């Protein structure tokens, strides 16, 4: 078997990583925008019920798929972190170019949440357990449960209360009202509705716990899909012997 050229191999490693990273970034962002985009796109949509429920729940798919690929083929527990970093790069690019430069929205209206704490915990749990089922149960639930508290330091100052035109409002409500959005009237907001109501006067706790519970299933499904998907492109490698692989 021929010995691989280390220089070429390093270049190939980075190329493969770059391809995986950008593919994840673009597809993850597309999926996020199409499913839960508004809840994270606007500060006056980041509520206590739907945002902590849906955002992590519908964003766990790509971290799970990515973990399956990186763990199965490279034994690297970085899939969730890499996919979430990709999402963040795409999100901040979209925020800056689309919302700030193009349409003049201030960052206070459109800042994005972070899923990195959830992703780091998910990767850590996968490494420590080495088991997809345990990762789904422990990591999957923690992925969603920590989302709201992890973002609370950014969100809390926007939940301070003000008297606006004789009505009680939060700073986030006032920002959403003030900076004109012609195609996003107030009635479109899906906030604070539903039956997942209070626990200690804070529905976010119920939402986060419920999201964590459902995320266990979501993680399992997406991890399995990731395992299957990563098998599909396995073609016969005509150049295998030059890469140090068995002919």
């Amino acid at each position, binding site marked *: 078997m021929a010995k691989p050229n280390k220089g070429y191999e390093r270049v190939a490693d980075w190329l493969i990583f770059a391809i995986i990273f950008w593919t994840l970034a673009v597809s993850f962002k597309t999926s996020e925008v199409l499913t839960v985009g508004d809840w994270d796109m606007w500060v006056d949509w980041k509520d206590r019920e739907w945002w902590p429920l849906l955002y992590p729940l519908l964003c766990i798919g790509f971290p799970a798929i990515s973990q399956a690929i990186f763990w199965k083929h490279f034994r*690297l527990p970085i899939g969730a972190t890499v996919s979430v970093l990709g999402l963040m790069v795409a999100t901040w690019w979209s925020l800056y170019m689309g919302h700030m430069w193009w349409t003049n929205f201030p960052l206070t209206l459109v800042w994005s949440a972070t899923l990195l704490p959830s992703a780091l915990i998910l990767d850590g749990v996968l490494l420590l357990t080495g088991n997809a089922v345990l990762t789904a149960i422990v990591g999957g639930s923690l992925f969603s449960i920590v989302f709201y508290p992890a973002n609370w330091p950014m969100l*809390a100052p926007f939940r301070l209360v003000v008297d606006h035109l004789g009505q009680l409002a939060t700073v986030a409500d006032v920002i959403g009202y003030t900076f004109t959005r012609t195609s996003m009237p107030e009635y479109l907001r899906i906030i604070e*509705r539903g039956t997942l109501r209070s626990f200690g006067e804070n529905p976010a706790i119920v939402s986060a716990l419920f999201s964590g519970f459902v995320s266990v299933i979501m993680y399992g499904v997406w991890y399995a899909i990731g395992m299957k998907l990563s098998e599909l492109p396995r073609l016969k490698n005509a150049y295998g012997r030059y890469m140090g692989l068995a002919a």
Partner: protein
Amino acid sequence: MKRLGPIVAASLLLCGLASPPPAAAHGERNQEPFLRMRTAHWYDVTWSADKVKVNDEIELRGRLHMFSDWPKHLFPLGTVYLNLGVNGPVFVKVATYLNDVPMMQSTTLEYGKEYEFRIIAKARMPGRHHVHPMLNVEYAGPLLGPGKSIEVEGEAADFAFPLTTLDGIQIPNLETWQLGNIGRVHAYWLVLAFLWLGWWFRRGPRLLSRFRSIDGGKEESLLTGADRIAGAVIVVVALASVAFGMISTNAKYPRTSALQGGRVRVLPLPDEAEQVLVRHTRGVYQVPGRSLELTLKVTNKSANPVRLGEFTAANLRFVNRGVAAAAAGVPANYPDDLLARNGLVVTPDEPIPPGETREIKVQAADAAWETERLASLMGNPDSSYGALLFFFDPQGKRFVSEVSGPAIPSCTTL
């Protein structure tokens, strides 16, 4: 050389895309006529200034009439939101009112009722901006009132929108509030994420060598005890950071509230008894003359004789200059493009005595039917027009009546 043409064409296209011309309006003429003629009628609209500086405020005010003959192929009138029709947040909303009720939230309106609106907006971005009052209607979309170009001078960087919370915290500018904090939180987690990736990539990604090891059944050799310790550390640090962030934030901001998403109730203005009743008899749209010609039966139930002074539809005003009170109702700075040059021709243009019913012919002729793309009402699902008619008595008192009905296209010359 053969490739030069496509390359030049592609370059020109890219240059064009890279520097798009600014939008001068919002596509309001693109909305189908039935959406503009038979839904929300805006009238008496005024703008307090034509030219302002960044941070200056303007006031838009006027009246809103929700049309009774709402198109049946449109969703019923339900939840609405009073908005400002501008190209993004170049103007920001300071306050909005419907019948003096603050309109931070959405509300519901009723068919055939009148509302007074008031919008106070603050200039944010320099430039020339087309400013409309606007009503977002759930399932029906945005309905724009008349638009006027307003010049904003100054620097965008000078814009500030201060606010004080109920706890007395001063927010110097809503545009920049907490950006440093948001940056610090993101930076902290990015550093942790890069440390985590750096641990695994400290000797490069080594994807191919790891792939070979797994292919050869040596995956256990890829993870060491140090790796597992690093994993435990990252989980503990992440959980501890989340807990610390939550606790310290709650200590710093003990009083926060939920987003406010209720509905407000707006009662319409008191009904004025229908003093002038108008019944549509026949409507013809003369295509060559760009003229809507109506035959109407008008019953005057008021105590004084009345004359028809104005026909308004889709923000376009046809004013009968022979009626002084109607002509006086057009402000000097009203947008020229929304004022029909030929005015309104009424035959016979005589006062209708109290208690009498007369048949009148109304001709609203202007190129604006084409330029405002209202002539395409012939292609609408029910090819009907809708308008408000303003009648005036000798004392200048105004009576507002609705009129609507089918319009038949005619291609014969006048």
